[in-house]
């Protein structure tokens, strides 16, 4: 039994469902809106002022790369998380609800193997979606402001500030950032996947995941939780921003990614144990 053939089947199922495309359409619409606002005089004036206050040239950094970064930074965490939770929350629970799992269980495949195939499909979907947002955002930005220019990055909460005057350097750093976002977003998918393995409705798996995520985010922003912010999942998920710094702080990045990796593995194992112990009546 080929893992790749099974994974191919899972991806085919995922991309054959109309609801999978809701996220793509929503993001394209949002990207268009962001670009329209970016082109407005008042927005340009604000950006010009911000850049000049930091000693940077407007003509170099008012660019497609900077716009793409803004799109990914602002949209992925809030809107992206909804779609990742939706897709991952569905992947097991919906098949159980629809009765598709019965036909799979009649096959000589272990439950662990089945979950590994589905989890791999979810991870692949998550990362590919991030890149879709990045690439489509960049293409639209190029159409709006041209391809040339550097990359300007500013995120006060994570204390990240960087500027890349050369296009090539900015583009490669943005691609690295997109990989980081993809890895961070897998955590949302993993949590939703775990709930999907539990005996619950697909919608419940999605809602519980988003609730956990938003509660984590809200608590993290409470002033008296600040000293403990590194213990919050959403803070760790924002660590991809460190990949955008001029001098790459690998220790900080790896520490957070190891935290997320451990969390992902833990929730996968919990989901698997629950799934393994369940009875699936015909």
């Amino acid at each position: 039994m080929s893992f790749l053939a099974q994974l191919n089947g899972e991806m085919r199922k995922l991309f054959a469902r109309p609801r999978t495309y809701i996220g793509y359409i929503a993001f394209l619409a949002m990207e268009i809106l962001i670009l329209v606002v970016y082109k407005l005089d008042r927005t340009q004036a604000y950006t010009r002022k911000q850049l000049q206050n930091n000693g940077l040239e407007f003509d170099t950094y008012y660019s497609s790369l900077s716009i793409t970064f803004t799109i990914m930074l602002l949209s992925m965490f809030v809107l992206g998380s909804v779609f990742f939770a939706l897709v991952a929350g569905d992947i097991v629970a919906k098949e159980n609800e629809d009765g598709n799992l019965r036909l799979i269980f009649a096959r000589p495949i272990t439950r662990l193997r089945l979950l590994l195939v589905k989890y791999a499909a979810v991870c692949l979907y998550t990362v590919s979606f991030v890149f879709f947002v990045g690439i489509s955002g960049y293409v639209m930005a190029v159409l709006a402001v041209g391809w040339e220019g550097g990359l300007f990055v500013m995120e006060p909460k994570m204390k990240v500030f960087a500027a890349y005057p050369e296009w090539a350097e900015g583009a490669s750093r943005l691609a690295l950032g997109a990989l980081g976002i993809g890895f961070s977003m897998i955590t949302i998918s993993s949590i939703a996947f775990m709930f999907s393995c539990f005996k619950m409705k697909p919608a419940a798996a999605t809602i519980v995941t988003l609730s956990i995520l938003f509660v984590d985010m809200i608590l993290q922003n409470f002033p008296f939780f600040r000293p403990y912010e590194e213990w919050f999942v959403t803070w760790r998920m924002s660590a991809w921003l460190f990949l955008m710094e001029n001098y790459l702080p690998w220790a900080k990045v790896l520490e957070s990614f190891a935290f997320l990796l451990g969390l992902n593995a833990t929730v996968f194992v919990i989901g698997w144990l629950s799934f393994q112990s369940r009875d699936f009546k015909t």
Partner: protein
Amino acid sequence: MLEINDLWKNFRGMPALKGVSFRVERGQIYGLLGHNGAGKSTTLGIILGMVAPTKGDVLIDGISIQKDRGRALRKVGAIFEAPSFYEYLSGWQNLKILMNYSGPFEEKLAREVVDRVGLTKRIDSKVQTYSHGMRQRLALAQALLPEPEILLLDEPTDGLDPEGIKWFRDFILDLRKERGMTVLFNSHLLAEVEQMCDRIAILQGGERVFEGPIKGLAEEQVRYEIDAAPTAPMSSLLAPYGGVVESEGVIYLPRQVDPALVLRDLIVAGVSVRAFTPKHRSLEDLYMEIKKEHHTTRSA
């Protein structure tokens, strides 16, 4: 080929199976009969490893499903009542996805099976456009890929029209004839099981209440509709034969009793018999008889 050994299953403390055992020989078509909630689906779920038994074991060709599910199920194909496919994919894509969970997809074999179940023209259409009969044919196709030695059928003809039921029955019988396929057939319809199975087990309340060959079981009428008067002496006249008046106009006689003798006694005793006809035996009747027989055996 298939051994079910002392299966017990409790769901939240409630017993769903109580020591069910039976054995299906190679090439046999075996019927598992019972009403809803009798334990048929739980038994099937345990055979497929979808439900963990509280106690007991299932062996498929000598391989324990509990110990080596993957190897045991290599020889198994299954169909469920109202099979659920991926509606938004074509029949062919569904087959491909499901077959990949068993082994490499063999296109030539798949084409042959699709042709055999009569789905060639519609196999590339989305499943959501299929009729119930076509879905059942697709279910049969997926169960036959890749070439199982044993088929598990869970109420496969539910919802099919009479033509579809006949087609399905003939198909299964042909499979047995050609390949010596072993079949376990779950149903609550005695008539259907009668036409296909060599042997049956009847489950009731999680217990196996009957196990044996089906041949002649339905013909052995034990219940008769009688239009006679006066009815008062009937009970005492039936008693020596072990018979009883079950309800108004219906009498029960043990299997070994010749109804002609009873009829003769009734007439000699002055009972005017206007009609005496064997009553069609339903699954319910069979249960009642078996329960009665069990009760009599236990009392004795």
